[in-house]
């Protein structure tokens, strides 16, 4: 049974993966400590990792430190070789890439990835400095605050009510070899910001921090999911592991699916999952049928679902194949659809979907 859920990967694809991996080997490795706010302890965790690696005999230097480090962090820094930042009169300090390249350690620690370098610097952004180190075979361990990630900026700004100007593209994180989430209760961040921890604003601030915390957890989960998919692909496996809930709403030109789509949207939101709305492309639809389908698709668009038209002869095979390829965990189908007495007796679409949907839940809606 499990075999039927899997497909062998195409050998050419495997070769391309192998080549990409080889390319990768010459680069340094990038590890990112991601935190949702200042005060969660990213820097300390990063520095401690550097210290442990040094104790195990790796050649580690610190390429960049942050001015506001904790006493514990300063204590760890004492045990590490630090290449000082370059400071040009009153401007933002810059990582000394030239000296680091010349020194060529195995690992360079970069505390605070989201800094803009002053005009006239080697690179405009610190993450580009890091990219240069990686290209030269130096591994980098760095720390990032969620609020500086470009693609999450809008979401984070909405929560925080203020904007960050210095940003890092999320693709840079996706490319990281390792990402480690530094999690802590919202209240513990407030301990580091006593001015916020008291008074009427404290509850609001805690609420904001909790929201940011959720965003950071889910962002990391998405990165991990992406990695898991790549990994399974490399090993020639395509199947539903169900680590993220994914909903597929199956619509037809014969029934209004707006309630079913609304329910799919709500479920996807509650589970932080994804929602697809799919239908079988059918050629000869009457104007009435076309209009029902159009309404369903408009509904899908409004719900923010990914709408797809699928080709194929057998409706059940088409929907189940799509579901498996997209790691769907729940299929929503309407009751009524098409089908008179004949189909009921010899097994309608619905019966077959239920019977053949190993690994996925089927939710039948009263349409």
């Amino acid at each position, binding site marked *: *049974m*499990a*075999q039927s*859920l*899997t497909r062998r990967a195409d050998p050419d694809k495997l070769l391309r993966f192998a080549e990409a991996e080889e390319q990768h080997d010459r680069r340094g490795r990038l590890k990112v400590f991601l935190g949702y706010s200042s005060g969660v302890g990213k820097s300390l965790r990063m520095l401690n990792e550097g210290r442990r690696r040094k104790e195990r005999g790796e050649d580690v230097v610190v390429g960049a430190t942050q001015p506001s480090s904790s006493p514990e962090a300063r204590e760890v820094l004492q045990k590490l070789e630090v290449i000082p930042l370059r400071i040009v009169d009153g401007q933002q300090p810059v990582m000394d890439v030239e000296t680091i390249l010349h020194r060529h350690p195995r690992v360079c620690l970069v505390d605070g990835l989201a800094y803009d370098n002053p005009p006239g610097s080697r690179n405009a952004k610190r993450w580009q400095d890091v990219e240069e180190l990686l290209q030269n075979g130096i591994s980098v361990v760095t720390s990032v605050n969620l609020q500086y990630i470009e693609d999450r900026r809008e979401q984070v700004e909405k929560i925080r009510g203020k904007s960050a100007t210095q940003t890092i593209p999320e693709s840079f994180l996706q490319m990281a*070899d*390792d990402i*480690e*989430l*530094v*999690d*802590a*209760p919202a209240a513990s961040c407030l301990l580091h910001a006593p001015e916020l921890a008291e008074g009427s604003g404290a*509850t609001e601030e805690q*609420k904001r921090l*909790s*929201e940011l*915390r*959720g965003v950071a*957890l*889910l962002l*990391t*989960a998405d990165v*991990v*999911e992406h*990695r*898991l998919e790549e*990994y*399974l692909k490399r*090993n*020639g*496996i395509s*199947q539903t*592991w*169900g*680590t*993220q809930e994914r909903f597929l709403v199956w619509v037809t030109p014969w029934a209004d699916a707006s309630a079913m789509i609304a*329910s799919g949207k*709500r*479920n996807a939101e*509650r*589970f*932080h999952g994804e929602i697809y709305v799919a239908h079988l492309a059918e050629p000869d639809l009457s104007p009435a049928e076309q209009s029902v389908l159009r309404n369903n698709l408009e509904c899908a668009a409004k719900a923010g679902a990914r709408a797809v038209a699928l080709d194929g002869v057998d409706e059940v095979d088409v929907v189940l194949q799509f579901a498996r390829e997209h790691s769907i965990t*729940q299929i929503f189908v309407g*009751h009524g659809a098409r089908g008179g007495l004949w189909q009921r007796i*010899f*097994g309608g679409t*619905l*019966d077959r979907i*239920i019977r053949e*949907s*190993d*690994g*996925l*839940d*089927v*939710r*039948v*809606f*009263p349409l």
Partner: protein
Amino acid sequence: MPDSLPRGQLKIYLGYAAGVGKTYRMLEDAHALSRTGVDVVVGYFEPHGRKDTIAIVQGLEIIPRRKVAYRGLTFEEMDAAAILRRKPAVCVVDEFPHSNVPGSERGKRWEDVETLLEAGIDVFTTMNVQHLESLNDQVWQFTGVRVRETIPDWVVQSANEVVMVDLPPDALLNRLRRGAIYPLERARQATQNFFRESSLEALRELALRQTAYEVDLRSEQEAQRAALRAPAGTASEGNVRPPADKILICVSDDPATAAVIRRGRRVADYLQADCVAVYVQPGNGASPLPAAKREAVEQHLNFARSLHIDVRLIQGDDVARSLVDFARLNQVTHIFMTRTEQAPWLRMFHRNLVQRVAQLADDMQVTIVSKRGLARTPQTETAG
């Protein structure tokens, strides 16, 4: 009931495998508290021979374990009575999902922790995501391991804080290879199940998403409390709850019922829906169920109760009709059931339970929970 102390606060350090650093993080926090003058003791600590972990427990007061004899062997368990007598402000308890040896006062360590909380003691504890009851089937599906020591989801939901202890699988596998987690022989065995890289990534993703859910849940509860405190008429639009869902789980003697109960409970939690499990007993005229089947039903009902699901027994000869009538009478919006297996030739003549329920419950949603098979995993994959 006399006025009792306020209940202690529970903080859970959630990880996804042995060796990610849960115990270490917990003890770090315990030290930090202890330094500020809080009375912290270690109620149970499992060193696993790990150097770093043993080093960090130094300087904290450890309550000696209780020795329990069972079948000629001696086991050591947490001494809850001694902790209650010592009555610290905070107690550190490793391995929350542990099952106590038979003959102990309580079956589970989480039940021991419950008594500490009731006595007003704050507890820090550790667990991995695969021990969460509602994820049991999924975890089995991709690891091949049926986790026996599980914790009902409501216990975790009742914690005041859940913190994710993260570590990339690469780093974890490095630790494993260095012998920092298990002795090397055991480490090699471990790579056969949980410690496959793909399993680790999948478990890690589950832990991250679970923590996000736990964070959300607490924010929502906080918002609801705030709305209750707010003077009438000032509640903002955002606090209006959507129409209530109510989930009914159909219980039978089918072994797949356990998976339906877990799944129904999980969906109910995420949708903030009420949840009821229903078994339709044969009517007066019918012959009684064979003992084995009756026992299976009883087990399923007890399992549902242990997950804080309301359990109802109703009578009727027509199972589908009785179930749907009950559902309609109780404003159920959503029925969960297992798939009915049926021989192909029977399909031609006979409508099965799922079909009949789906037909009768034409104003509700009906979820047929799939049979989840064991997933294929890469054969060559190892941690070495």
